[in-house]
């Protein structure tokens, strides 16, 4: 099992201020873009319809 050893002189703290609506949107847009990058949409293949004789 691994472990993430933070440097001794670093304490992980986040900024506790509330997010603005713009910031919330920025995060959602980023996640959407990241997901799109991970799962690029493949162009749809046209359904093959056999020629009727």
């Amino acid at each position, binding site marked *: *099992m*691994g*472990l*993430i*050893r*933070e*440097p*001794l*002189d*670093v*304490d*992980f*703290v*986040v*900024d*506790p*201020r509330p*997010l603005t609506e713009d*910031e*919330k949107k*920025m*995060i*959602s847009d*980023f*996640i*959407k873009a*990241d*997901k799109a990058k*991970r799962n690029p949409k493949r162009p749809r293949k046209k359904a093959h319809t056999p020629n009727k004789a």
Partner: protein
Amino acid sequence: MRCNPQHIDIEIDKLTNSIENVITGDRFQTDVSLIDKNDVKSITKNDGWLFNWKSEYKQPDRDVYKLTIKGNPDVIQGLISITEREDHVYLHLIESAPFNLGRNKVYLGVPGNLVAFICRISFHRGFEGYVSFTAKTQLIEHYQKNLGAISAGGQLMVINTDAALELIDKYFKD
């Protein structure tokens, strides 16, 4: 225990991983679980905690988890507060116990352990591991290096699916 029965289940309510004693290098198995009323009494500013965890606990949209050493549930090693957003889990606060801060910290791995746990929650809640938070400017580089977080603009950071999987793999491989 305060929890949202729709999202918290026994499996993710308590997971085992480890933290490391700085001096001896010994590793100790840990548990992560939701805090309760009794915990709130011992995580005040008078006890050396920097943030107001009582207020965090009272907010109905937030879940506050504690990290403890297995078999020693009364000594809290670190705390984390989260909210579920539309497409990810947002990390409001994270804090190591006063004795795990600075150069004289007793245990290493507390924040990483807690963040990996939250990534796992994100998967369990259907968010593909996505976690976001607002970083202190001077810590952005550390978050990128140690957690694999990506800047989403300004101080906003996102842990994506790949980074979340890596964190989970480090802590919950077993």
